[in-house]
């Protein structure tokens, strides 16, 4: 299960993507993924906001992650 990383999320992890299936206990929901990120990389906890997109739509914490989903970490946006 690939997770795409953008903006400061890419800098925090040091990569443009990471593979969750390599993790011992892959997160099963958006909320768990956020908890994993914040505990593995404390810098995520310092951001103004942290959102996750599943299949290129913003996803609430309760959304379940399925194999084959396209998951992306969305740090605070700053377009315009």
């Amino acid at each position, binding site marked *: 299960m690939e997770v*795409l990383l*953008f*903006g*400061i999320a890419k*800098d925090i992890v040091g990569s443009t993507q990471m593979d969750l299936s390599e993790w011992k206990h892959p997160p099963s929901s958006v909320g768990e993924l956020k908890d994993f990120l914040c505990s593995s990389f404390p810098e995520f906890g*310092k*951001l*103004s906001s942290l959102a996750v*997109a599943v299949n*290129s*739509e913003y996803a609430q914490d309760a959304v379940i992650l399925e194999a084959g989903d396209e998951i*992306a970490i*969305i*740090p*605070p*946006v*700053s*377009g*315009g």
Partner: protein
Amino acid sequence: MEKPIIEIVDIIDTSQVYGELAHAGSGGICVFVGSVREFTNNEEVVSLEFETYAKMAIKEMEKIAIEASNKWVLNKIVVRHAVGVKNVQEPVVVVGASSAHRNDCFEACRFLIDTLKERVPIWKKEIFKNKSVWVSAHP
């Protein structure tokens, strides 16, 4: 309303937008162009670097255009954002709308840029002489 023009591009040509929004039924066209400012908090900006999650950004920009067309009576909409390195004074975003009467396109134009800034997955890094900062990342 005609199908909105929604794009992520490398370079914005601001002369395009009038032709794209011009419409026989429109008595007004309102356009906002965002560009690179020279100073942020008194610090000189060398350039801005934009990156995006393009697939999602296009979807969110389309949703914003549809929301605008539901709120106001519009004939045409353009939402276009640039990515890559942009220097001082270069345009980075163009949004606009045309409508029969000016009030609809004025209000829609502000909504398009304000909502884009809140929601569309585009990230801006400010490059200063001695450091670079992801804008809005930290409180």
